[in-house]
């Protein structure tokens, strides 16, 4: 098997180009690899098309830092605070919006990534009917169901195959095989649809740990391009079994990003003036330790024996 373990800086530098379409997170609120968000900002990526149903405040940070030209998704804001101030400024200031938005609902985006993962030319949905999303996103087409009653309308969703998917998992081996547990949003579809998959694992474990429970594998290692180990990469979002949500951090970000100057000062303090995620965790100090889940609620083992 091919060794795929690299550090985060190398993974981002090697595999994410200006102008790429990128899924980062896609679990909605949990397991968003903010460490990768910060690294994209530090490395000065430009012109990204961020694809996700909801990636909490990550997308707002990337927009504010000037990395984004396009958003393909259902919701951009701050789940704790509400509005995303950088997202608002991109639309409301100046003569024209500085970013383009391709509006989807969560389910229609889910079907777009599933169509991408399955290599289908499109998927029909009964959602989006009656919504002005059909007006603001011309990629979605109103059609007639060829198998239905006459004039039964449906909406056709074209496939999305992102250039890169950056996904958090609880554990992986050095070959990219991995386990993810808890709700998974659209990460399985994103990983299967994307050209390049970068995994950010909380822990690197022996290959036998992963192969002991193949039903828990999110995506097999041969579909993974690079794997990197970063503890607490998801902070301030939660990760099942490892980290609770740092709600105060989201609220502080919301308050400080209310003005452009406030956002820039937040960005210097928490991203630009910080060398890497290790230094970020050091700066968090005792607060990160307090967020670690210390309880134990292990699943029952499953027997895979063959004889």
């Amino acid at each position, binding site marked *: 098997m091919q060794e795929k373990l690299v550090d985060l800086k190398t993974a981002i530098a090697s595999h994410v180009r200006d102008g790429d379409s990128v899924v980062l997170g896609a*679990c*909605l*609120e*949990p*397991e968003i690899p903010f460490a990768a968000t910060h690294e994209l900002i530090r490395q000065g990526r430009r012109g990204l098309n961020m694809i996700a*149903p*909801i990636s909490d405040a990550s997308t707002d940070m990337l927009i504010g830092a000037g990395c984004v030209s396009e958003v393909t*998704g*259902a*919701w*951009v*804001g701050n*789940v*704790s605070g*509400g*509005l*995303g101030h950088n997202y*608002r400024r*991109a*639309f*409301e200031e100046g003569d*024209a*919006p500085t970013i383009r*938005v391709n*509006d*989807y*609902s*969560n*389910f229609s985006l*889910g*079907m777009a990534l*599933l169509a991408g993962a399955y290599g289908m030319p499109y998927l029909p*949905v*009964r*959602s*989006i*009917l*009656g*919504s*002005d*999303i059909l*007006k*603001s996103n011309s990629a979605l087409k109103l059609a007639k169901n060829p198998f239905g009653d006459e004039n039964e*309308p449906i909406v056709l969703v074209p496939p999305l195959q992102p250039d890169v998917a950056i996904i958090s998992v609880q554990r992986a081996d050095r070959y990219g095989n991995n386990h993810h547990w*808890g*709700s*998974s*949003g*659209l*990460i399985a*579809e994103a990983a299967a649809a994307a050209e390049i998959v970068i995994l950010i694992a909380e822990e690197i474990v022996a290959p036998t740990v992963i192969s002991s429970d193949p039903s828990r594998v999110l995506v097999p290692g041969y579909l993974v391009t690079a794997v990197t180990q970063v503890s607490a990469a998801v902070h301030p*979002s*939660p990760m*099942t*079994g490892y980290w*609770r*949500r740092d*709600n105060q951090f989201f609220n502080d970000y919301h308050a400080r990003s209310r003005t452009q100057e406030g956002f820039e000062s937040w960005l210097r303090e928490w991203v630009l003036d910080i060398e890497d995620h290790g230094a970020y965790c050091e700066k968090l100090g005792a607060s990160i330790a307090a967020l670690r*889940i210390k309880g134990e*609620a292990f699943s029952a083992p499953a027997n895979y024996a063959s004889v």
Partner: protein
Amino acid sequence: MADYSVQELMIIAAAREIADGELVFVGMRLPITAFGVARLTHAPNAVGLFEDGIVRYEPATDMLYTMGDPPNQQGAAWTTGLNPVMAQLQRGRVDAGFIGGAEIDRYGNVNTSYIGDFKKPKVKLPGSGGAPDIAAMSKRLMVIVNHDTRRLVEKVDYVTSPGYLDGGDARAEAGLSGGPSVVITDLALLRPHGDDHELHLASIHPGHDVNEIKEKTGWELQLSPDMVETPPPTTDELAALHTIDKDGFWR
């Protein structure tokens, strides 16, 4: 009269909309508490769906900031992806769902996307999330908003989540069944009326009157012929709510 807050009345009014055994898209904050109250009172077999990819029988007992937080994962009936949970809407299995909104109009259309022209909006709101999916494909939609003329408007600038569109048969002609069954505000309950489906004043919360509610509604609000006063929370309903809301967040 029992002592309760307006939020507690809204939660209990929302809980009364859930029937036993129903599959319900729950959402966060007020509706998730309403789901818990319904389970503890008249709907012990209701099932809660969360679009992250979570299905629960028992609501989580520890504090949740978001539906993806660890207490909502532990002890779930199912943790899976977004698609397997939301596909149950399209399969026609979901009885009801709760959504909120920045604007709602007389036909129950909800806007969470753009104030003004979507090409150059005055305000860019976070967007749809899963609300259009729930609005289009659940059998009943329940909308929770605060009651003022900025939110309850004649016509929304942008239909993120469809209600009855232009009224009458418009929703059916668009290919949709279901539709809003109730709008729960801090002053009243509005329900669609007759074949036109315009939202009418159906229930007034104790302590409020018709004129006040009309003044705070952005269209010429009609009264339902069956209009009632919202029954105050019963002792059992309040006890169930206090079991869930141990810290008194909603008091």
